[in-house]
Structure formats: structure tokens, C-alpha cells
């Protein structure tokens, strides 16, 4: 029975993936069916659904955002939102408007963040790399600037990510305690920490791939 269901899911996912690129209405029907299975806890159907949705939400993000990094981040934020409120999807209603509203919210949030970042950026005049002549003084000043950059980057994080990294990485709480405190699952806290580290690395100009971003 479960094998048949899994095969059926794979078949639906295959259909949805093939059709979603063309925006076929049947693809949305297939994806809505996968969503119902996902609401009942079918992990395979859920993974298939998110993969099938991926080109569509990416297309929505691409229309409003230009940098590939922003597009990828926004797609991931859309998926996190879908995950958080998956209980609100009503199978008697069409799936596409449900996805559109969530995607629109996340894209607008990203655009607002980008505008804020751009408004804060200022061109530095040349030859102002060093503020003091002595090396030691520069080191102290640079450390202070680094800390300020870290605080600024922390402030830029979405509230959920900021809370997660503050509890787990700054206050040193375990994932279980942080999950209990925030009312989220351990997996959700882990994901938020992972996303926060990635965002901080990007904000501070580091290589995102160093260290893998795991939080243990």
C-alpha cells in the first residue's frame, strides 16, 4: 500500500515538475494533491511539492530581484514561510493564489531590506583605509569597527533568525532549549541558525562556503 502511494507521489511529482514549467493548470491540481499529502505528514510528497514549486517561485522572485544571491535567498525564505503556515492551505481553494500571497510578502520584505541597505551605504574616499598611523591603534579601531559591523549585520536579520542565533550561538543555549523557548521545533531553530550564519557571512563579506554553516 505504502509502496503504491510512494510510487503515486513520485508520479504526481514528475507530472507536476514537467507541467509547472509551462504553467499548466493540471500542474497546480497535482501540486495541490501533493500538498494535502504533505499536510498529513507525507515527507516524500512534501519534498516533491517543494521541488515542483521551485521554478515557479524562482520565476516570481526573478521578476523583481536581479542578484542571483537575492533570488536564491528569497526562494528559500518563501519555502520557510510555506512550511510555517502549511496548515492554512484549504484543498477546496486553489493553490496558486495561496503561494502568490506568501511569495509576494517575502519578495517585498527582501526588496525593503535591499533598499535599506543601499540607503546606508556610502562611498569611502580614497586613502582612508587607515585611521591612525600606528599599527596597534589601527588594530584596536578595526576590531571596534568589526564589532559594529557584526551588530549591524545582526540587526539586519529577520526577527526569527536573529532570535535563533542569539539564543543558540550568543547565549549558548541548546537547540532543544531554544526550541522550547520559542515554541518551534528543533529542526526549525536549526534552520534559522543556519540561515542566520549564512546571512551574516554574506553581510560581513566572508565566503559562505567556509565551514558549511552547521550549528551542531
Amino acid at each position, binding site marked *: 500500500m505504502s509502496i503504491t502511494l510512494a510510487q503515486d507521489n513520485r508520479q504526481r511529482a514528475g507530472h507536476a515538475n514537467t507541467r509547472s514549467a509551462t504553467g499548466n493548470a493540471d500542474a497546480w491540481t497535482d501540486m495541490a494533491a501533493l500538498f494535502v499529502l*504533505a*499536510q*498529513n*505528514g*507525507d*515527507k*516524500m510528497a*512534501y*519534498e516533491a511539492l*517543494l*521541488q515542483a514549486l*521551485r521554478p515557479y517561485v524562482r520565476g516570481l522572485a526573478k521578476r523583481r530581484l536581479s542578484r*542571483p*544571491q537575492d533570488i*536564491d535567498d528569497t*526562494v*528559500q525564505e518563501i*519555502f*520557510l*514561510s510555506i*512550511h*510555517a*503556515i*502549511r*496548515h*492554512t*492551505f*484549504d*484543498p*477546496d*481553494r*486553489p*493553490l496558486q*493564489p*495561496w*503561494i502568490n*500571497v*506568501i511569495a509576494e*510578502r517575502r519578495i517585498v520584505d527582501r526588496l525593503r531590506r535591499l533598499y535599506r541597505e543601499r540607503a546606508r551605504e556610502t562611498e569611502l574616499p580614497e586613502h582612508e583605509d587607515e585611521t591612525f598611523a600606528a599599527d596597534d591603534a589601527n588594530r584596536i579601531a578595526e576590531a571596534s569597527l568589526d564589532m559594529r559591523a557584526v551588530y549591524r549585520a545582526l540587526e539586519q536579520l*529577520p*526577527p*526569527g533568525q536573529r532570535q535563533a542565533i542569539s539564543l543558540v550561538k550568543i547565549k549558548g543555549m541548546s537547540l532543544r532549549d531554544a526550541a522550547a523557548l520559542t515554541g518551534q*521545533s528543533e*529542526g*526549525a531553530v*536549526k*534552520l534559522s541558525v543556519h540561515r542566520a550564519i*549564512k546571512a551574516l557571512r554574506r553581510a560581513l563579506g566572508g565566503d559562505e562556503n567556509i565551514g558549511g554553516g552547521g550549528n551542531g
Partner: protein
Amino acid sequence: MTDQTDKLIADLAADLTPVQRLTPPFRRAAIWLVTAVAINVAVALIHGLRPDLADMLHHTGYMLLMITTFLTGLLAGIAVFLISVPGWSARWALLPVPGLVLCFASASYGCYADWVRMGPHGLTLGTSFDCFSWIVGLSLPLSLGLYFMLRHGAWIRPGLTLILGMLSTSALVASGLSLFHPVETSLVNVVYHGGATVILIVLSVLGVPLFKPKQI
């Protein structure tokens, strides 16, 4: 970047648990409205119906205002449950507008009738702090009940949700008060609920944790 999205999808699927689907918004609105009417009737019976109620039921202005106020509360109640679920257009927020227009028209008609009947003295504004305590007493259980029902949805439009929720509560409180409170309370009611809405919006914008809507 796509590796990150693949990893996120895999993590979300691994984190998946079955969810209880949200009750459709019309049904939730019906439950809340029945509860609100029951609370209104209970408070009216505890307080005692206004002594001139039998006469007032033949008063066109009174009846029109009570019916249109209740209609506004009813439509705003339906609208707030619809717009707090993704997939329903934000245009549903306009649903209470006909009720509001009729309500203002009825109030204007009442003022005009009083003016014709009693001359300029019929329009004298008075204050009653006694009615304020009844407004608060009736409003608190209604507002809390609405909040607990709405928090299961998704705060995709927090501002609109707050405004419609307060409109629905204040209109239902006003129609309930008219059953047992002999003094016209609309102005105090509007000032109280309008003030409470502004305070809640300011607190949520400032990021005060208790008042910050759960973002998706």
C-alpha cells in the same frame, strides 16, 4: 546556491510533521459571531435590558442604527477571517464598507430626526464614564476571543487584520450596548476602539514582543 535550496528542501521535508488543517474562514467567522452575540446577550441580561426597550423597538432611527451597526460588525468579522488566510484577496477587506455606509447614514438620520423633534438641543453632546466601563467590559472578552481565533491563521496583513478586528468588535459592542444602555455610546465606543487600535499598531511597529504579530 541551488545546493543550499536543495538542502533546505531536504531539511524541511525531514522536519515535516502532520498538521491539523485550519477550519475554513467562513466557519470560523460564524463560530466567533455566534460567541460574540452570546456574550452580548449574556451581558445585557446581567445588566438588565434598558427600560424603554419596548418603545425604542418602534423607533425607526434606533432600529436602523442597531441593525446597521450589527451588520458592520458581522461583515467586518467575516472579512477579518478571510484576509488572515493566504489565497483570499485583500479586497475582501472592503466587505464591511456597505455596512459602514448604512451605519453612518442611519446615525445621520437619527441626528436629523432628533433635530426635527427637539431642535438644536437634540444634538447636544454629553459624556458618560459609566458607559466607558461597560464598553471595556464587553469589548475585552470579544477582543480576546477574536485574537485567540485569529492567531491560528497567518498574519500576512497585520495592519488590516487589526483594523478589521477592532471594527468588528466595536460595532458588535455598540449594537449590544444599545440593548441595555440608555445613553447613546457610539462616540465613546469609537474613541475607545480607535484609540486601542492606534495604540496596538504603535506597539507592534515599535516591536514590543507581546504585541508583535507573528510574521510568516
